[in-house]
């Protein structure tokens, strides 16, 4: 590929074929009872799981090479990190909900694309690092979102860490840095010639209950943490449906602070910047609370011919 480019080939530009807002409550994997996960359940959170299934069906019909996931559960304070080895195989145990999520994974990484994004990010002036320790455990956010979008793990992935600039500075600084990261990744993807699916693995409002029902999947106990969170979440979903992504990014600081939103990790900002701030409607696949947090599944499809009103 590099040789072709050097010779001035007309290799097609890489492109982002879909962007997905794909929250990662481990409850959704737990509720599904896949073979990879040790605990068993009686179900639960069907609105989200059915939504995920619908999005997975759409994804299966799209031609793409790699899934790139931005996860808030790989928290890094020294820049942004990228997975940098071709395979990771291990057991992921959620440190928060170990009773729900103990998942055996075996995944492949698109190291070429990972390194390309790492390089482009560094050239953009951001601090960045490749993760090449073979003992490293991939975070459960990445695994949950990828499992639900691509249950057969049919494609290689790239995981991007969440630099905690929000903690060190502010949501505004996070927005700026995640925007620069997204633009750098867009350039790298374009130059790679690959078709890529982006995944922002995060909830919207993110205040949890601090107790758990005796039966975690008891849906009679599930509801949003408070009405304020719900109103904010619905405002965000409405703007997604209306294609107002720049406006969402503009109010990101207020939304994030008001709802302790998991957007504080930068994933949604990163994805929207990488997709050049879509001004077309998002496809909404579902919304439901999980232990009080607000979770929306949404997709941005640049191909107008494929785009549809799902919900």
């Amino acid at each position: 590929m590099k040789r072709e480019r050097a010779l001035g080939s007309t290799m097609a530009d890489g492109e982002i074929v879909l962007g997905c807002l794909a929250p990662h409550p481990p409850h959704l994997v737990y509720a599904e009872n896949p073979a990879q996960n040790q605990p068993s359940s009686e179900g639960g959170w069907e609105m989200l799981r059915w939504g995920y299934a619908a999005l997975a069906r759409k994804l299966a019909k799209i031609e793409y090479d790699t899934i790139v996931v931005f996860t808030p559960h790989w928290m890094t304070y020294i820049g942004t990190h990228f997975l940098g080895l071709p395979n990771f195989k291990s057991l992921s145990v959620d440190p928060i909900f170990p009773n729900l999520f103990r998942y055996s994974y075996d995944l492949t990484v698109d190291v070429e694309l990972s390194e390309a994004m790492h390089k482009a990010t560094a050239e953009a002036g951001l601090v960045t690092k490749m993760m090449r320790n073979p003992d490293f455990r991939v975070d459960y956010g990445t695994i949950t979102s990828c499992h639900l979008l691509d249950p057969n793990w049919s494609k290689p992935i790239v995981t991007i860490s969440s630099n905690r600039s929000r903690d060190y500075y502010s949501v505004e600084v996070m927005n700026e840095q995640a925007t620069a990261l997204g633009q750098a990744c867009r350039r790298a993807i374009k130059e790679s010639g690959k078709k890529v699916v982006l995944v922002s693995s995060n909830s919207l409002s993110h205040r949890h209950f601090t107790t758990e029902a005796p039966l975690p999947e008891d849906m009679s106990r599930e509801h949003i943490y408070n009405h304020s969170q719900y109103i904010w979440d619905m405002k965000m979903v409405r703007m997604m449906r209306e294609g107002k992504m720049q406006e969402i990014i503009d109010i990101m600081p207020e939304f994030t602070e008001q709802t302790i939103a998991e957007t504080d990790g930068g994933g949604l900002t990163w994805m929207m910047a990488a997709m050049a701030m879509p001004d077309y409607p998002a496809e909404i696949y579902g919304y439901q609370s999980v232990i009080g947090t607000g979770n929306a599944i949404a997709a941005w499809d640049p191909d107008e011919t494929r785009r549809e009103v799902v919900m």
Partner: protein
Amino acid sequence: MSEENPILFGLYTPPHPHPLLAPDQNPGWGRLRAAFDTCRERVQSSGADLILIYSTIWPSIIGHQIQANPRAEWTHVDDDFHDLGSMPYSFGMDAEFAAEYRDRCEARGLHARTIAYDGFPIDTGSVVALSLLNPDDTIPACIVSSNVYANRSETMVLGKAARDALIAQGKKAVVIVVASLSNRMFTEHIEPAEDRIHSQKDDEWNRKLLEFFADGRLEDISQLSRDIQGQIRVQKVVAYKPVWWMSAVMGQHNSYDGEVLAYEALHGSGGAVISLTPAAESIGDKEFDEDDVEFYRGDRNVLEGGVANENRDGQIGDMQASAGVVGNLDESDSKAPTSQTFPDIISTDSAPNPVGAYPHARRVGDLLYLSGVGPRQPSSNEIPGGPIEDDAGLPLDYDIEAQTKACIANVDAILQASGARLDDVLDITTFLVDMKRDFSGYNEVYATYFNKIQATRTTLEVSALPTPIAVEMKVIARAPPI
């Protein structure tokens, strides 16, 4: 110190992997490693039954989690410093103690659970501490998480529950908190030789804290925790909690021999190895700016459909504090500790409901200690003789004699519930809101009950009491034979 003190000594250790994985790359990291080595010798020769760790970098959401896997094994890699190498570990955990700790947490109103899952990711700081302080795994350990939403009261009670569990099992422990001092790291790569504390301000605050630690002023640092959070902590979590927990578990005082074994930069943050050994002498009075907390009554009932501090129907839940005290006074709830969870606690329906997190009385040895009690009626909350002010805070006329009689009747009811009676009263402290107006009437009624009993007495004027009453009594009495 009391012979019953279950704490041999406490350690404050940094959460970063550098002293374990890269002590040779920077002289400061090497000095931290040497300090760990010194502490290792002390831990190993201490006779400790248990190493008890509170880690600020093991976050939890569902209450607190307590590590109970008898054999916790994995190879850990740090999220940020993965290039320094891997950390294989195999730690023995005291599952029996973990279960006791969980139960003691629940008894104090906390939500807690033990976890024992193969492959559970033990955090970097705990791995570093146990690898360096207990390398041969000769002493079983227990690790407790730091709840991301917890604030002072919850963290304090978590520490007290640990102490309860140690006493209940008769175990001696070395306690460790895993935490930075200042926690602002450089957000870019630096060469090991370039490491230094991120800013002069952070360094100055760290050194002030180290002075406190060296003087053994643990409770003073606990009281300063909110200031520390504001001054030198990146806002990753809501509060700087480790010293709240450490002070609570170690006894809430300043009587320690403190020793700062090392203080160095760890990628810009303040890393220190500090030892605190209980001592007979204290450098000075401790500073108590904030209330002590025995039981947790926070928002743990949210999932039950209630709102934090929601009141029970038909009780005093709508009572508002008077005299400028803001907030709802009814902190009681259905999870209040009972005599079943604490056998020395006395609570009775024959006395007015407490307006806070306290019982009517506790028995200690041959003595009964009664909480302050006023004249409110047990069933109705009515105040005999009338309240001293209306809902708007405007003063009302009231009958101090009637209030005093009712107050003594409530004291008597609590004593009877304890198996004692008024004749057993040894000492009374009386609080009046208007000494000039009320002392005479109060004194006259008092004499009709206590003239023959001859209890010692102190009468004070206070600016307000937490309900619109004029008199409150605090009593110590002789307990009945067991």
